[in-house]
């Protein structure tokens, strides 16, 4: 995969910089009757410098794709953007983006463009997705002026919707991964967290299928209903 990024970045650097018409990027899909057992879903996790979306910044993006109900490890995204507290050259080297690109000041922009291409406009899932959505939308807008809305779903809502009786010790990612005895290879590494989130998504989709929830639309409606139910309980 990194070969692709390198190639792509090399192309970008060899002249045609700045030629990013957002309209040439894949169009975000809308919620429709896509079969969950077939469509592609993006599961994403961001690492940021803090929790305040107006002040803090995205450090790393990790994402994996689910397609046909299966996680494809050759279809993943693992990139550290900027880590001010670390030696930037080293961080960048690790992830295959040359210092050249960095000095030209394209690295975040290029990486985000690549992310958008890679995402292919497919629905995005994340754990506590509101957080990731807010940060990503803010970054996309600031860096690329990109404002197209993507379909977002919260895995933190998905799980209790399909496992309402699960004896989970809390509402965090760790609690659910403990419940299903999943191992996170490196916690708070964007890609590792994205993978474990995707694993939980597989578990939920498996259950959804058995409960007769077959299309993306049905899934979104189920989450919507779940949210209303929760709000009713609240008031």
């Amino acid at each position, binding site marked *: 995969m990194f070969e692709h990024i390198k190639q792509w970045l090399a192309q970008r650097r060899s002249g045609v910089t700045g030629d990013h018409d957002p309209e040439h990027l894949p169009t975000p899909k809308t919620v429709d009757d896509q079969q969950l057992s077939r469509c592609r879903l993006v599961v994403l996790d961001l690492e940021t410098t803090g929790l305040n979306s107006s002040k803090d910044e995205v450090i790393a993006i990790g994402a994996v794709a689910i397609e046909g109900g299966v996680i494809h*490890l050759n279809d993943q995204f693992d990139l550290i953007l900027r880590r001010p507290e670390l030696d930037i050259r080293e961080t960048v080297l690790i992830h295959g983006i040359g210092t050249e690109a960095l000095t030209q000041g394209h690295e975040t922009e290029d990486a985000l463009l690549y992310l958008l291409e890679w995402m292919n406009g497919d629905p995005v899932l994340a754990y506590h997705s509101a957080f990731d959505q807010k940060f990503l939308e803010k970054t996309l807008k600031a860096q690329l002026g990109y404002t197209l809305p993507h379909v977002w779903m919260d895995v933190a809502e998905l799980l209790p919707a399909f496992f309402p009786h699960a004896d989970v010790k809390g509402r965090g990612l760790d609690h659910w991964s403990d419940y299903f*005895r999943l191992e996170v290879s490196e916690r708070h590494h964007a890609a590792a967290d994205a993978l474990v989130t995707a694993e939980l998504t597989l578990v939920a989709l498996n259950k959804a299928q058995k409960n007769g929830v077959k299309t993306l639309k049905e899934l979104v409606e189920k989450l919507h209903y779940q949210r209303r139910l929760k709000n009713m309980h609240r008031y």
Partner: protein
Amino acid sequence: MAAANQDMTRPQNTRAIMTFLREHSPFSSMDDTHLAHFAEHATLRFYADEDVVLSPDEGVVKRFYIVKQGRIRGERHNEKEDRAETTFEISQGECFPLAALIGERPTRTLHRADGDTFCLSIEQKAFITIFSESEPFRDFCLRGVSSLLDQVNQRIQSRAMASIGSSNSLDTPLERYALRNPIVCSPDLPVHKAVARMHENNVGSIIITDDNRHPTGIFTLRDLRTMIAEEKGSLDTPIRQVMTKDPCRLPATADAFEAALLMAEHHFAHLCVVDDEDLLIGVVSERDLFSLQRVDLVNLARTIGTATHLRTLVSLRADVSRLVDSMLAHGADSGQVVKIITTLNDVTVRRVLELNLKKHDPGIPFTWLTFGSEGRQEQTLLTDQDNGILFETPEGMTDQDVRDKLLPFARKVNDELAECGFTLCKGNIMASNPKLCLSDREWDDWFIRFIDASTPQNLVYSSIFLDMRAVFGPTEPLHRLLKKVLERIRKNALFQKMLAGNAFQRKPPLTMFRNFRYLNDEKKHVLDLKRQGLAPFVESIRVFALANGIETANTLERMEQLSKKGVFDAKDANAWKEAYSLIQAIRMRAHQEMLDNGEELTNYIDPDDLNPLDRRILRESFRQAQRLQQKLEVTYQL
């Protein structure tokens, strides 16, 4: 550093999968580039409890799977009972379906998730790439799980081999040895002519055959020496009068191990090798077997068997331990090694008895019995005494008269055996115990009470007294006794059921989740390989053997005979024999290591100390014990 740097250029999730793979065989011995290829081309799949993963209906298998988390079980439909039967289990780090993928056919077994399960999977294309590029992987796929067993054996052997350095295996069939053309003669040839013939051919033995080339006797230089020294006859004597009649013989398909064992037991240096029709085709000597090796089993057995002082016997015990090392090195499996230990122990016991008889013969013939593991011929280096005496009371004496004569003798023998390293039995199950030095009638009564009154204590004793063997003295009295005992057990369904219930109590150390169940809270992570691992086999097999009139006490032989009698399915019997032997092998290796480290021998091991392969094999072996117990459960409706 170069490798580490290269590793760092890989995405986190790829690295994590490679780390996972490295913990399991055969991936642990594969190159990083192949592991990376695997990880980058893998998909991760989830199966909820009871989901079908692979089914025979899906056609030719196109994917290769590894269990990342959870467990898969293979299901076969049992026509007779119309229910699904688990044929195998695949747990974390294990691969499937090898045979179907290699054979490009559909799987024959339904694979079902047993609990929530994640599998990594690669497509056929990636599989073929790795298969063609990685030798360890190819080796594993082609030989399947059997290659895992080989690896275990190789490791056992190579470790012991390091101290010896030879590769000739005792599994080699005798026909592969350069069998010398046997020097033969007819029974009427005078001794001096026979010896001349031996001299011409420069051999140490001559086989006496009948007109049809069936061996009828053997004459060796040692026999000649004895003959002259003891003035047994002139050199014109026909050889049939001085030869050893009915010489020991083995078929050409027998292996070197059997030959060595036979020689050790009887202190021969030569054996006849015959074909299916008992026609002589060769002679194999101790020197032939061991010319390339320094395994001196026969020599050691002879030294023990002819030792003239107790202290010699005591000093020879160290050699027994050394021999076990070398036996493992020469490819003897655990079944062979326990038999060797038992053989050497038998020789020692016999010699101690003979030396004592020379000094103060009580004057009454008796049969020396051994019980328990020694009775089963399953002794390891850690052993204590379980013995007794069976005698026939001569006319004009009471049983008590005989006992009074035999007990002081038995006491001395027990003490001397203790000096030789056979620990005195804490439960006083020894020949010097008046309750275990009994006449044939008394033993019979004893067993009648034992079988009729199935007290808990008796059930505990069943593992000792129902595994019985004669080591010294006439064997016929024991045979007669055993026949009666077996007949009573066969007729006593209640006793059988009590035995079965008792055997069923001894659960293999696996939890519901197929993890190891440890001894207790104090001994976390400790398994007792004898009590928890072997005993479930030994106890269950005993019930079946006794119920089916099988006289031998050896667990492997009992299984063999139960399979022959059709009580066990041949495949099941094989799986159980293999599982039992593997636990025994792991136990013996542990003993050997404790000995090397100068530690006291125990049967405890921590599975965490084992490598993942051994752990897996141990777990699978325990699972076989569970299956055996299930058979017990069904048979006796426990």
